[in-house]
């Protein structure tokens, strides 16, 4: 069980309010990702759920019970920190067993649970090592192991992959996803990386300056961003936002078109521009095109074998069904 409800939650540090009143429901078993630029309050929100930060007002419900005043250790939540926060003087075995030891569990039972967790995380060979002797990915797994043994109502992840290198990050992303499939426990995951959000989440919460901009499944956010901020934040490379006369043609203040929804041609098209930088990834080519009115540079995705050179003229045609329209407030026009 792990249904978490935030009602009218606010947080102020001194006179600055970092989180204006906020409501959010996280259903049992959901993988929810809080995503937003740094400083948007996503980590603060997570720490408030964990109980590491006090609420300025409002309340938090876990499984129907008011948990606002419940101390962190009794909320039944386990957290994985960005720095892993392993205990450096203890072996992996002791690290994983620490929460159970604090719960005054029998040593034999602790050993059993630690071994089970270690087996499922491929840590059996490292049980007697200290954190300093482990690689980043192994440390991350130990931190997850320490969370698993508690059998929490929900897992909280605070940017757990940002200290890992790119290749390892992809692997760990998959492992956490599989862990969720296996345990079916509520997970709340904080990241500034929209790729992590898109790949792992059942539900994404996009935050900006403490305000929830949109809540929805990854594809909902991709196809129907509620406003310009979400449109620009979700998707990689970023959506091109075009203002001025081109937007006016569609009856909007701003129109948005994703790089993958623009057709590129060297002979004819709607917009004309010059190639700036072309990034060849093999599978795709991202071309930054200069000179298109209202949006400079415009990023487009072309086929991997497209060969264009700097300074060459290209023609771009947006796929009309994929144009997003936004009004003067930046909100989506259907």
């Amino acid at each position, binding site marked *: 069980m792990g249904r978490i409800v935030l009602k009218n939650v606010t947080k102020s540090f001194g006179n600055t309010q970092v989180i204006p009143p906020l409501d959010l429901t996280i259903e049992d078993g959901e993988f929810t990702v809080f995503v937003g630029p740094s400083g948007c309050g996503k980590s603060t929100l997570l720490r408030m759920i964990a109980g590491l930060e006090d609420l300025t007002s409002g309340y938090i419900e876990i499984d129907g019970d008011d948990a606002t005043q419940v101390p962190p250790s009794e909320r039944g939540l386990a957290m994985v920190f960005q720095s892993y*926060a392993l*205990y450096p*003087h*203890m072996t992996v075995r002791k690290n994983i067993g*620490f*929460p159970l030891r604090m719960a005054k569990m029998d040593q034999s039972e602790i050993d059993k649970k630690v071994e089970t967790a270690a087996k499922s995380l491929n840590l059996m060979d490292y049980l007697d090592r200290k954190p300093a002797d482990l690689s980043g990915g192994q440390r991350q797994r130990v931190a997850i192991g320490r969370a698993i043994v508690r059998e929490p109502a929900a897992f909280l992840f605070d940017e757990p992959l940002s200290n890992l290198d790119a290749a390892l990050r992809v692997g760990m992303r998959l492992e956490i996803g599989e862990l969720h499939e296996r345990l079916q426990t509520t997970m709340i995951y904080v990241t500034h990386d929209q790729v992590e959000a898109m790949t792992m989440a059942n539900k994404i919460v996009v935050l900006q300056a403490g305000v929830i901009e949109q809540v929805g499944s990854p594809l909902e956010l991709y196809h129907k961003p509620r406003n310009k901020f979400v449109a620009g934040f979700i998707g990689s490379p970023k959506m091109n936002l075009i203002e001025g006369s081109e937007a006016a043609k569609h009856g909007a203040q701003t129109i948005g078109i994703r790089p993958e929804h623009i057709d590129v041609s060297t002979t004819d098209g709607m917009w004309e521009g010059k190639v700036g930088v072309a990034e060849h990834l093999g599978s795709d080519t991202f071309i930054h095109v200069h000179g298109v009115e209202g949006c400079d540079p415009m990023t487009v995705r072309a086929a991997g074998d497209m060969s264009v050179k700097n300074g060459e003229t290209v023609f771009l045609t947006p796929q009309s069904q994929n144009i997003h329209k936004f009004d003067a407030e930046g909100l989506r026009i259907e």
Partner: protein
Amino acid sequence: MSDRKLPRLLQTPAVLLLLVWMLIPLGLTLYFSFIRYVLNNLRRPEWTTPSISNWRGFGNYEFVLNNKDFVLAIQNSLLIVCSILFLTVILGVVIAILINKTFPGQGIVRVLLISPFFVMPAVNAVLWINMILDPVLGLQGIAVGSINDLIGSLREAPVIGAFFSLWPELEPISFRATQTSAYAVIIMVTWQWTPFAVLIFMTSLQSEDQQQKEAAVLDGAGAWSQFRFLTLPHLGRPIAIVVMIQAIFHLSLYAEIEIVSRGNGNKNLPYLIGEFANNNIGAASATGIFAVILANIVAIFLLRMIGKTLME
């Protein structure tokens, strides 16, 4: 090979200086400890100049070992050093943790806490033995006297007087007595060196990882468990440093012992060396060699012990 020559050449003066600095005194001490060498002897004037022809073998060592004060001096050295280490480490950890929290007036409190460390050892000893520990004129004497006066006047009171007349008259302790002068030294040096421990532990506490503590809070660790399983292991290395440095300093305590009791019943090794050095340089040197051996044993023993208990 040639590219190593220049760095070596440049290091040479420093290394030579260090060797001269260290080896000459040690060598001379060793040499003097094996010969008869006294400052003043009318019957054997040839002993007053150091010479290899006055060779005495292990005679000086034998003389020192048979001296009635030697065992006492070793015991006292160990008692004083170990007690001071024990007290300063415990007080240091407690105070460092207390002042590590933010509170108003933090800066002033920290400066005040550090200040005993700037008092000269001899001044420290004079202050404590005369102004605080003196059984008549010191704070101790005044405190004991006024408590006795208070109880005395309460004895006159109706009803409760009967109860207070059962109380004994308090006796002030004389710290210049042979049995207690070591405690006076321990008290004053602890007072002076606790700030050193506090300073080192405080810097270490400030580098403690806060996320580890938060993780421990979520794992259900209370204040004591956090201290025992996170803070104390974190302080393991600074504690080892404090113990090592203080062991070196306190094995050579002299001024405090001289001022408190002039060594009456409270000699340590350096004081014994000082006494021998009044005339018998050979015996003083032999004692010095014993002191070097003792210092090494103490250092190795303490470091092992601390390493084992704290680093798990």
